[in-house]
């Protein structure tokens, strides 16, 4: 396949970027999207040009590092797929592909397609944990039975990879899906119960501080989330938040 790529180039955080056009040829449909990017970078390096910086690590859809906005969609056109899992067979010979970084005030660009998502870490630091000592002097694991249904739902919420596609795709750059996934996971488990009020209040406060937008329930995040994190989690977080706001002292 031969392709035309329009890629966002930005030398650094405080520099103004712009779209540049590149051509790649002989791309196999079995290549992954990032392998196609490798081919481009190989070509750029050999031509003495600056390769395109982009984030990636596991290349199997689990680390959450890859983050490209491809043809107007976070992680590209396929559902339930991270950028690294996208394969070139989803495109046609002669296509023009637009590639941009996640765009949000809370995700400043580091270089080209690479953005800084440490705001997500700070939200988790605000309360996305159970305050248990790492001593191992806990009770036996089976002393805390958890109804399978809740365990499964908590697991589904916990599969969030923290990629930020939800923010990238949201017209408001809202981080609600990400935050609600963690709040839900811990709200669904007895282990998370003692801190549930404080947790949701703190995490939401931090989320707002980071400069994410507000959720208006467009539902785009759920559609684009590579892990299928459900909007039910956002509703659950709204519930938790209302409850905590009303009951907190």
């Amino acid at each position, binding site marked *: 396949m031969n392709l035309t790529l329009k890629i966002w180039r930005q030398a650094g955080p405080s520099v103004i970027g712009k779209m540049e056009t590149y051509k790649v040829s002989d791309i196999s449909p*079995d290549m992954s999207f990032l392998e196609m990017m490798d081919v481009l970078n190989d070509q750029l390096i050999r031509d003495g*040009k600056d390769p395109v910086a982009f984030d990636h*690590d596991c290349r199997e859809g689990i680390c959450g590092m890859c983050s490209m906005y491809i043809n107007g969609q976070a992680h590209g056109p396929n559902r339930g797929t991270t950028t690294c899992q996208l394969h070139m067979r989803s495109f046609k010979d002669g296509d023009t592909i637009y590639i941009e970084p996640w765009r949000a005030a809370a995700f400043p660009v580091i270089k080209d397609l690479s953005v800084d998502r440490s705001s997500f870490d700070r939200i988790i630091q605000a309360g996305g*944990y159970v305050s248990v000592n790492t001593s191992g002097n806990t009770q036996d694991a089976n002393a805390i039975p958890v109804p399978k249904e809740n*365990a499964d739902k*908590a697991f589904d919420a916990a599969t969030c990879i923290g990629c930020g596609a939800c923010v990238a795709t949201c017209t408001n750059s809202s981080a609600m899906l990400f935050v609600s996934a963690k709040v839900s996971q811990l709200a669904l488990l007895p282990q998370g119960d003692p801190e549930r009020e404080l947790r949701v209040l703190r995490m939401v406060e931090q989320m707002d501080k980071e400069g994410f937008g507000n959720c208006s329930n467009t539902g785009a995040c759920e559609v684009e989330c590579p892990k299928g994190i459900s909007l039910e989690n956002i509703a659950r977080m709204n519930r938790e938040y209302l409850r905590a706001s009303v009951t907190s002292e």
Partner: protein
Amino acid sequence: MATLNSRIPEGSLGEKWTNHKNSIRLVNPANKRNIDIIIVGTGLAGSSAAASFAEMGYNVKAFCFQDSPRRAHSIAAQGGINAAKNYQNDGDSTYRLFYDTIKGGDYRSREANVYRLAEVSANIIDQCVAQGVPFARDYGGLLDNRSFGGVLVSRTFYAKGQTGQQLLLGAYSALSRQISKGKVQMYNRHEMMDVVLVDGQCRGIIARNLVTGEIERHGAHAVVLASGGYGNVFYLSTNAMGSNGSAAWKAHRKGAYFANPCFTQIHPTCIPVSGDYQSKLTLMSESLRNDGRIWVPKKKEHVEAIRNGSMRPENLAEEDRDYYLERRYPSFGNLVPRDVASRAAKERCDEGFGVNKTGEAVFLDFSSAIMRYGKTEANVQGVKNPSEAQMQKMGEDVVRAKYGNLFEMYEKITDDNPYQTPMKIYPAVHYTMGGLWVDYNLMTNVPGLYATGESNFSDHGANRLGASALMQGLADGYFVIPYTVGEYLADDIRTGPINTNTPEFEVAEKEVKDRIKGFLNSNGKTPVDEFHRRLGRIMWDKCGMARNEQGLKSAISEIQALREEFYRDVKVPGRAEEFNPELEKAGRVADFMELGELMCRDALERNESCGGHFREEYQTEEGEALRDDENYAYVAAWEYTGMPAEAKLHKEELVFENVELKQRSYK
């Protein structure tokens, strides 16, 4: 340089750890506030250690090269984590887990370490559950288990095919909690470039801020490396693109011994290579061998037909299939250990029975499991005389619940639906048992420098059993090193903060900067990846699943030549003071080229076959690995001398007091 003292405590196997904990020196809580610890790596081993140290009161600085500690490659572990809980009441015990691990490792690991691992394994599960890790549960609300290769009990805890993710997020949350308290300072997008020794003790590191390119000095009273494995020396592996051996290699260059570097694990069930452009390989969890059956056609004509697409594998008659693992190893069947399964696949493919175009693939087939589950499910749901289609459907649902995400992953990569047609799989590099040599306290031979998790060599001998790496990482981080570090730090309570304005730090910093300059100024033409690919090819062909003397010797000289070419011809674009992924890669590949050479040297030295190390010269008549316990029951710990091929060998003899050394048999 110090001699090898493994510091194994006195007493019977079952008492060693308890005795040791009772007699180990402690640092009092007030003094812990004056002690700094650096942890390089935030995978299971690093995050858990960082959180635990901080909790105990030490000041911690943690480093990772990813943009968040949550993205360490532990996140990708799929299948599960072992623990001797005996919840299934199938006869499991600490001893049995110990024994399975020693045997699985082909008797090349330390008894005392392995026993301790088995002892603390149960605690790990308690800890993780308390943190809110959502393990799989049964309808009664209790924890569920599955089986992994090389064992006859069900002791593996799991969270679908995302166990590593859930465990790491648990450790990450514990770490986050300490970061918010200010007890851990987290350095994301930072790469450790070197360790700094002062008077023979490790007192800090040099790190590069990957965003700004700034070179930073960080002092500490102890440094813990939890930097993962070095499987990427093979270029293609199931490791993440950024996984590297550099942290460990830098430590090695500064005096830490590298143990058993040639012990690499080739995992039998990975998605086969599809083309030259391939950048990494994807694992299909070992847990799939609980339900999947591995086969190739019995007849060459069928192989041909399947390769050229004129026959669908699902249509090949039962009697024309060779379920070769079940045939060769009736008692363990598809659940033989990884090294055995990998070699068996290679053997079939070498004989010409490989089922894809490259001839390097075998089938992993779920059809009988789907039907079996479908039938049970039909009974449960009260469907009398279910049709084939109904059973298929219900069975698929059961399989989806167990392995859904793996099947999806497979389908995304290959565009084949594994519910309908068998998966194609082939062995790939997955894990490195070798690593920095450590004593019972997990300290390397360099005082104050520790290694945990996959970066050390400690527990898995010549072959790691499935679901044991996660166990080891968390055991090291939560339950071992928080105690054992006291033994060393007790001497440091009056040292005061480590001054980084010393000649030692200065020299180390300068070396790092010079090396970076060297890469950037090399006026070559060839991108780093190409060298990495070529190195990988050499390693895979000559130091991979099967090795022989001649091949290893030629590998060593090829690597040396490649290294020379690399420094002459590599092209690293960009500047030092910016975000520059190519520069990062250059440093890592340069280190791999030295490490690879040492691996070949080690493989050449070990004139036996054991576990993942298979020397063609040493095999039984049936083609099984032939160990030589008389001459090689030792840990090979290599000392850096300037040239990897001329590294100096130190031997730690392995003493087996509690198990009898036997030819491993899974028949």
